[in-house]
């Protein structure tokens, strides 16, 4: 089973709050691959990238390092699309 992963840092001001978490999950759900998100830093945790509740419970605030892991046929495209969301700061501009 193909795997892909990417390290990113949360860069939007309010962190992974409700709306970005929803966006992330919506994108993750477009792929067949399983998506896991690991949180580093002081309180490490992991979340199912397709569960909005788990994603928001990660409490990934601005500056939190995250690792996106995908496993499945479309793992590579999934990780690219998800990482792009962080680069775009979830459309929040600043």
């Amino acid at each position, binding site marked *: 089973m193909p795997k892909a992963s990417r390290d990113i840092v949360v860069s939007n001001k309010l962190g992974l709050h409700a*709306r970005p978490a*929803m966006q992330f*999950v919506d994108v993750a759900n477009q792929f067949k691959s399983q998506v896991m998100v690991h949180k580093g830093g002081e309180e490490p945790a992991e979340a199912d990238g397709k569960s909005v*509740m788990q994603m928001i419970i990660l*409490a990934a605030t601005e500056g939190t390092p995250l690792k996106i892991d995908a496993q499945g046929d479309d793992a590579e495209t999934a990780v690219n699309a998800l990482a792009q969301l962080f680069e775009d700061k979830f459309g929040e501009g600043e």
Partner: protein
Amino acid sequence: MEIKKGIGVSPGVVISTAVVLDAEDLVIPKRIVPADQTQVELARFEQAITDSTAQLTVLRDQISVKYGKEIGGIFDFHIGVLRDKAILKQIAAEINTQKTTAEYAVSTVMRRYANMFLAMSDRYLSERVKDIYDIEKRVLKVLIGQKQEDLAHLTRDVVVIAHDLLPSQTAALDRLHVRGFATDVGGRTSHTAIVARAMGIPAVVGLGNLMSEVNGGDVVIIDGTRGVVIVNPDPDQLVEYREDEKKQIRMETELATLATLPAQTLDGHIVSVQANIEGPIDVDESLIRGAEGIGLYRTEFLYLTKQAEPTEEEHFQSYADTLRRLGGRPLVIRTLDLGADKYTQAQLVSPERNPFLGDRSIRMCLHDIPMFKRQLRAIMRASVLGDVRIMFPMISTLMELRQARMVLNDVMEELEDEGIPYRREIPIGMMIEVPSAALMATDFAKEVNFFSIGTNDLIQYTLAVDRTNEKVAGLFCPAHPSVLRLIRDVIRAGVRSGISVSVCGEMAGEPLYTLLLLGLGLNIFSMNGPDIPEVKKVIRSTSMEHAKLVARRVMSFDSERQVMHFLREETRKIIPEAF
């Protein structure tokens, strides 16, 4: 087995299985369901998620149009949570492994997440706990609504256990199969109590935390006479209570034979006993109990069941249905008497500070003429279908009465213009439930065809006691000499002007006051159907001469204790088993 003591508010004994109605704004206690019910709970849960999601989608779209996509997007998160497979799986697992109700499983899992939010150090994220509570509440509301729906279409007898019953809930009940109520809160004059007495089924209220000790399907004994509820009784108690149940049925059959006999005293004085009803559904039961007509049709239930104003046609249909069932007997329709209740207050942007002295009843109607007219039109249209009489509630000044009559005249003219038939000389009456009206009864008697004394409100306004406030409810007493003097004067004013006077408050249905009211010269006793036989029994067992003596003696007392003591003694002489 668990024995709980509360306040018995409607007498009788019932043994049946429990249906527990949780409340979405309270902590839901752990409730186990029988193993074969798990599939039902899972199905209820799935349906609740589908329904909640549908509600949220509509809400999101409405809010987005009104306040913009940014705000509406908040509900996207709510929808997202309800589509979150991880959460749905956890809740389903909870139902499966713990054998709990869907309500409890939803509440448990959502509270677990809520706690995680509360533990977050980021303020902004931790604030989102409110969304979690909101989602939980929505799903619970749907689940509880489903169960209410089920209570409208029962296939077997049940007793309903709840924290408190709302008018909208009791109005939708399947009256054939609901055999008793038991609630955590409430008092003698709570809504649950009134409805239970109207239905003639046992009820116990003020049980504290009964809700958390009953699971759906448990066998429960409700003893409304002693104010006791027994959950999962042991075999001995079951035997004992089955005996009680039988005795009760025997007594009821005995009282039923009274139904066809007239309400006539030993010396030939005849009065009329009538019933108070909430809608057409109560008519048959009232007639079986011996009602000679309907002395009070409370039209509020039509508003409460739908949580919206009924249309003219809906009003008309219920009046027409009622008249059909009455077969020519008189029907007094009271116009809308809402206002100070929980339902109306909750709808107001700013609740009134003093609702019982506020914009209620006829005042509310006169402030909303189009609504008032809709009901009056329906009543007038129904007036050609039977013996309809119209009654205005809460009149406190002559001006109010005249205004109400003017609106009614308008309605008649409109119907005239439209060529719709109605009865122009429809009898018009008023409730006497405010001391100002009671004191001016002689003046009012010149302008109406009948009086009906609403003792509950008359007592509340005369004694300045809110009977739903447990701390002062003890001061609420129909036997207070001030109240009795007002009642005496109203009856006197009616008799002198040649108009009929009825009492349609709870006092009319209490055998304790029958001798007194009879002796004061009351023409019509209007009460809940189940109370009719006993009151009739008192009337048929005494003479008018004796009743007058009793009344004269009562009016000489200066304290309610003396009054009650004396009335109890006198009534016991006539019917020893009454008290």
